[in-house]
């Protein structure tokens, strides 16, 4: 796979950060879209998958902060927990894409995505239980808020993110992960 330059990775990260602000507003037409469709997760996961863990981590940390600064959402009270969750998504998705090489882009993407999505939710749940809402977090509340309420968002991420990555590869905006076989 042809490696992208640091400048290009930086600009893609900047664009993903901007999308962390713009995308939730686009979803705003739907009530409670933030917690159901999780629009801010998509650019962060994509940034980690495409640019690597360092850039994914930065996108996960700065994305929610930037959104709070511009739109007031997520509220400052929820911001730290969301920053932790998204930072783990960006970090783990980037690390997994580096570690997993199954010779199939789809398999790499799905394994990385699923591990990142699970890790982020586990770390956010632990952070909530140990720091932010000590004594008030139970397995039931964690499962409800991170899996049940956001089930549509999880499905959307699993369908859309690989589609977007492939669309970007086809448009030659990011390099192919594995060289294509010539007919």
């Amino acid at each position, binding site marked *: 796979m042809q490696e992208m330059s640091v400048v290009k990775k930086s600009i893609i990260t900047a664009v993903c950060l901007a999308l962390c602000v713009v995308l939730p*507003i686009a979803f705003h037409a739907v009530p409670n879209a933030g917690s159901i469709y999780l629009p801010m997760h998509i650019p962060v996961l994509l940034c980690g998958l495409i640019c690597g863990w360092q850039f994914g981590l930065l996108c996960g940390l700065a994305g929610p902060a930037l959104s709070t600064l*511009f739109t007031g959402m997520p509220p400052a009270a929820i911001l730290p927990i969301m920053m932790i969750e998204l930072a783990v998504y960006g970090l783990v998705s980037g690390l997994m894409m580096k570690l997993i090489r199954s010779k199939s882009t789809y398999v790499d993407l799905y394994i990385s995505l699923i591990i990142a999505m699970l890790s982020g939710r586990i770390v956010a749940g632990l952070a909530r239980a140990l720091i932010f809402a000590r004594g008030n977090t139970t397995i039931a509340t964690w499962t409800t808020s991170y899996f049940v309420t956001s089930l549509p968002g999880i499905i959307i991420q699993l369908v859309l993110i690989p589609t977007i990555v492939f669309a970007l590869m086809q448009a030659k905006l990011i390099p192919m992960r594995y060289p294509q076989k010539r007919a």
Partner: protein
Amino acid sequence: MNRLPIGIYIPGDTFIHRLDSRIKLLGLFITTAAILLVNSILGYSIMFAFILGIILLSGISMKTALNAINKLLLFFVIVLLMNTFFYSPEKPWFSFWIFTPSTLGLLYGIEIVLRLFLVLIASNILTSTTTPMETTHALESLISPFRYLGLPTGQIAMILSIAIQFIPTLSEETDAIRKTQMARGARFDSKKISEKAAAVLPMVVPIFLSAFKRADDLSVAMEARGYRGAKGRTQKKGTPLQRQDLGALGVIFFICLLQIVLRFSNLTHPWRSRF
């Protein structure tokens, strides 16, 4: 998308507006720490007086300052009820199924709501009196010591400033895509949530493709002009801290110190009791 609330910033020439953005950002962090330390009526009274003082100095109307709170009233009520009904099984008012409402839970709920209330107003004052670009420069300056640990602070600041500049562009682009989808029959104004969701989702892939196209163009342009990273980048002029900035920082530190003393001193006084 035209209602993009960029510019929560309210232009002005007040004492708080003129303060250095680094001091305001650092001040928000210290104030948040002080709020988290509070555990007495006296402590909360001091913090309320302090925040009220900042609101008056910033020239922001009380309505604007409380704007962030209005949106979260329901959230506050839920936090209060959850704590009241589930926090403690000790000395409950009554016990029914999984519900054990208690005075201790109610007090804990009030404490959490008060803390959230104060943090939200403090951060609202920062965003109302500081432009996002100033905040980015402040962030760059505050994280600059981390460059000695190998953190590319210049590059991070570059990414943040490009991201901020991309927001209006991408927002216009998203609006154009939304209108295109509407022309194709997407029903954004439908009262059915499923129809609204079905209208929004097809927008996502075109938004990403368009955004990445812009990123590709910009990176090619930057590399063609010889840009190889933010390392060693200098600023045209520095902005030294003024006497008023140091004075403001001193006051914030004093408030934080006062909260530490109140929290950890062994003095007993009715005002120090926790509710």
